[in-house]
């Protein structure tokens, strides 16, 4: 079972890795975006870590709902509403229990990813965060380490794709040959799960 501490560890592990990788995320966002992905997410997850400490929510659902709300209000770029919706919708799907099974979590995360696809209108293959998240959710049944590997593979596989959503899509064929920053940060988020699970 996954308890509130697991979800707190997930968020703090993600905050730490986003902090560590902020420069790389911004560098990936420079040729095909507006060079703010790393700093935006860094600001967002720093706010998440601070809010979790201050408000100390006690259930998995409440932790993710608060984290999502923080991202929507602090990021300042498209990744705010997208990651915010992902975590909020996942949190709402988890409901009020003090702990949840890995199966329940996998279902809730799928609901979160579906909500992100609805919000942004992106499908797999559009060179977005969805290209890391969908394979990760699909692999979650085999454990967190498998999900992490699938997300990383999905992020790497965005390099030859042409962007069809967001600012990068204006570049057309020139977006080909660059790894998508959103898929890369999504892989960090999923890696945070494996870290929280000690895998």
């Amino acid at each position, binding site marked *: 079972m996954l308890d509130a501490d697991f979800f707190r560890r997930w968020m703090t592990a993600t905050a730490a890795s986003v902090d560590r990788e902020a420069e790389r995320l911004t560098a990936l966002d420079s040729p095909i975006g507006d060079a*703010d992905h790393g700093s*935006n997410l860094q600001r967002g997850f720093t706010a998440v870590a601070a809010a979790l400490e201050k408000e100390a929510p006690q259930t998995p659902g409440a932790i993710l709902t608060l984290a999502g*709300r923080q991202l*929507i*209000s602090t990021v*300042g*770029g*498209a*990744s*705010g*509403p*997208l990651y*915010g*919706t992902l975590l*909020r919708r996942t949190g709402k799907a988890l409901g009020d229990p003090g702990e949840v099974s890995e199966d329940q979590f996998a279902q809730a995360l799928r609901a979160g990813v579906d*909500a992100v696809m609805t*919000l*942004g209108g992106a499908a797999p293959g559009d060179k977005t965060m969805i290209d890391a998240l969908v394979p990760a959710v699909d692999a979650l049944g085999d454990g967190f380490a498998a999900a992490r590997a699938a997300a990383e593979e999905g992020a790497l596989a965005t390099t030859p794709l042409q962007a069809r959503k*967001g*600012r990068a899509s204006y570049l057309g064929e020139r977006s080909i040959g660059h790894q998508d920053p959103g898929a890369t940060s999504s892989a960090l988020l999923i890696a945070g799960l494996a870290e929280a699970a000690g895998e």
Partner: protein
Amino acid sequence: MSDDKEERLVGIVLVSHSAQVAASVAELARGLAGGATAVPVAPAGGTEAGELGTSAELIAAAAASVDRGAGVAVLTDLGSAVLTVKALLAEGDELPDNTRLVDAPFVEGAVAAVVTAATGADLAAVESAASEAYTYRKV
């Protein structure tokens, strides 16, 4: 009577990545609407730190400030501005009741929305006028 009518005008929120763009389009729309000063129009541009971007807080504050009970029409530029408004609407409790994201070109839609709102039209009419601005071809 006229006070009563003013209180029921649809509010307009203009969301841009740039504070200057949002404020200038608000000024332009009011000006081209013949100084429709009774229409509550609020810009929500840039981040709270004054940088380029979108702020959920500024959007929520702008929407609350123009809400007169007749609904609020939100027009946006692109990208995170659209996504942030949609995410706030999905939250359910972040924006006034009867707030709508209007699918419209930012400048032309803002002018159409303010002109229409000034006549005392309801939210659906304001939305429809702003969206129709897409059909105005320049060439």
